[in-house]
């Protein structure tokens, strides 16, 4: 066990260096911008966006100084919890940390359904394809994964949107329908988690007494009365808006997982210990699922970790297609509007996700496979 602990500590120390490198790299990229654009990285409230104050900021934070001085100052800002001001995050802008907090739930909603689907279904199909190599399942999964991998995700999203719109006459863009948005933002609805799917259920289950006392504002055209049914309606509405993005991500991202699982399983099935297990007279299923699949899962674990981190870090394209106000949509909008602190904050956030996922996967590895930690 001690070797595992030292291994984890060693990995964590490496993580700090990678994070320092990552932030230095993005900071170096931002240095290409003139000081008045970069001043936004130090702004804490709307008051400071006025032109007169901005010039003061350029002097105060020495935005014409050499790189290492600025980087040091900026890092200390980050440790104080200030990532700057994002002018692309809604009308009037908001602090980057605030933007991350309010946009995170919409990304999370999609990942909540997409990630398990991709991982479990992908592993299942990959294993089946490897067992029945060159069989029908293998050929079908090969075609599906190559096609899925070749499709531009924004195009699939647009096709789905247009088709759903033509067939059902509903527009499934955005997180909720307008009626539900009015309902959710009215004061009777308790936004406990910020995730609409959870909040609907929570309101229906726990906040009944509170919700019934409060009258919905006059501009509520949604026509929903406050009751547990309409609370649950919010969840259902949110769920229906998540379906299309989830389909897009599953179609696109499952392809890679299937391929990796298949080849890793094929490799495992060719190992001598499988022959030994078969020679011992073990049942076929035991050999496949206990001996081969377990070993074949190791590379898939890495991929899954990276995949989830990538998804949580934001679905730039998918969210943009479906107008989901999540992290990815915000990042895309900030890139177009040259909102430097937002892009910087977002890049750091997603890098952090990747690094943490890497660490988790490494620790899992060391736990599963003793050869790694003893190396």
């Amino acid at each position, binding site marked *: 066990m001690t070797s595992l602990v030292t291994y984890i500590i060693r990995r964590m120390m490496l993580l700090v*260096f*990678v994070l320092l*490198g*990552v932030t230095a*790299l*993005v900071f170096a*990229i*931002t240095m*290409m*911008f003139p000081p008045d654009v970069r001043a936004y990285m130090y702004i804490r409230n709307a008051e400071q966006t006025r032109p007169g104050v901005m010039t003061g900021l350029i002097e105060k934070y020495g935005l014409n100084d050499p790189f290492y001085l600025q980087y040091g100052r900026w890092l200390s800002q980050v440790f104080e919890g200030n990532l700057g001001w994002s002018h692309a995050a809604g009308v009037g802008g908001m602090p980057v940390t605030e933007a991350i907090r309010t946009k995170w739930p919409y990304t999370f909603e999609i990942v909540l359904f997409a990630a398990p689907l991709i991982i479990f279904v992908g592993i299942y199909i990959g294993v089946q394809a490897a067992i029945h190599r060159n069989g029908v399942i293998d050929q079908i999964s*090969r075609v599906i994964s*190559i*096609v899925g*991998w*070749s*499709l*531009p*995700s*924004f*195009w699939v999203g*647009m*096709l789905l*949107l*247009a088709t759903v*719109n*033509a067939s059902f006459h509903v*527009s499934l863009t955005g997180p909720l329908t307008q009626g539900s948005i009015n309902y959710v933002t009215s004061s009777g609805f308790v936004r406990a988690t910020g995730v609409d799917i959870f909040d609907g259920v929570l309101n229906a289950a726990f906040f009944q007494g509170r919700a019934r006392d409060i009258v919905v504002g006059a501009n509520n055209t949604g026509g929903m009365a406050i009751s547990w049914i309409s609370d649950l309606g919010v969840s259902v509405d949110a769920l229906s808006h998540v379906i299309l993005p989830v389909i897009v991500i599953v179609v696109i991202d499952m392809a890679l997982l299937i*391929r990796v699982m298949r*080849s890793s399983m*094929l*490799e495992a099935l060719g190992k001598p210990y499988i022959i030994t297990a078969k020679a011992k007279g073990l049942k076929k299923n035991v050999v496949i699922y206990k001996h081969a699949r377990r070993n074949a899962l190791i590379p898939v674990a890495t991929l899954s970790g990276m995949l989830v981190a*990538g998804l949580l*870090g*934001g679905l*730039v*394209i998918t969210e*943009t297609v479906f107008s989901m106000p999540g992290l990815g949509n915000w*990042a*895309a909008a900030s*890139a*177009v509007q*040259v909102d430097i602190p937002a*892009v*910087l904050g*977002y*890049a750091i956030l*997603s*890098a952090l996700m*990747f*690094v943490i996922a*890497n660490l988790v996967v490494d620790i899992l590895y060391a736990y599963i496979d003793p050869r790694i930690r003893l190396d």
Partner: protein
Amino acid sequence: MVDMKGRWQEFKVSMRPRLKEYAFMLRRMRQSPLAMVGLVIVLVFAAIAVLAPVLAPPQGSDPFMIPKDTSLANVRPVEPIPPTTNHVFGTVELQYDLYYGCIWGTITAFRIGLLVVGVSLMIGLLVGTLAGFYGGLLDEILMRFTDIIIAFPGLILAMAFVIAFPQAIQINLSFMLLVVFVLASFGIIAFRPNKKLLLIVQVLLAFSLLSIFYSPVSLGLSLSKLDKVMVAITLVGWPGYTRVIRGEILRVKNEDYVEASRASGSSDSGIILRHIWPNTIYPILIVATLDIGSIVLSAAALSFIGIGAPQGFADWGQIIQSCRNWLVTPGQIFAHYHTFVIPGLFISFFVMGWNLLGDALRDILDPIIRRK
């Protein structure tokens, strides 16, 4: 003369196993239907790219700008029209001809895919070889640097690069030369310890250092939006190649034939050129083939966000992006389907062709699984 003939014989004998290998690969390739489909798709696109000036004669000074039907635009300024005899695929927003855009977009796709993969591959080959072959501190520094870039989700870093690059950049030639000479002197020390050569390079190095301080020579370079996208994707892509190449070199460098070559007095560069690269190149070619498709997808995604090719440029991603407003037309179901279905099919088939080819190449070239 006799000597030449002898050498030619020797060469033929030494090449025989390699030729046999190529013949085997070709045979395997013909047996795999998916590989053939992929090859045919790529060849069809290559034919479209080559014949583009015939298929869709350019009308303006810049062939990559899609011609606009001005007479049509006077009647119907914005809304796309469905396919007609004048516009075989119809038009997109602002009456740009879709057919022209799709045909010339093929050249753009090849340009993006091949250039980005080529440059990333070259950087990766150089850095990966240095890191893998020499190891030690150099390896540690180079690999930690690639770790940092790989720690990013590619699209986001590419986005940051695209918006950070100015339209026109001043390349400091003196500085570039300095870097080249520093690398060269390292190379000389590592590969070919030759005092005279080293002295020349170091004198040049000293001159470039002086020139940086006294009169820097700089070169103005203007980058189009598409160039910026390509540079950004290259900057994001090379660490992946470096990692693969380094891994391959680590695998090969302790093989017996490398040891034998070293024992018989070959120089490092000789070993790398004659033994290490030929034995590491196949896995890298597979990665590169698969990568061409995904690079075209990334470029299209950047166009879709709105930071890629400008409006009216013959680029599939840009064309689809300009159709976003016409997804849904109230009262007219499927009215503007052609505007995004056709360019989408072009992208999908292009990427699929490379993916099929790469996937089949992996089965054919991978020595572990191919003989089964």
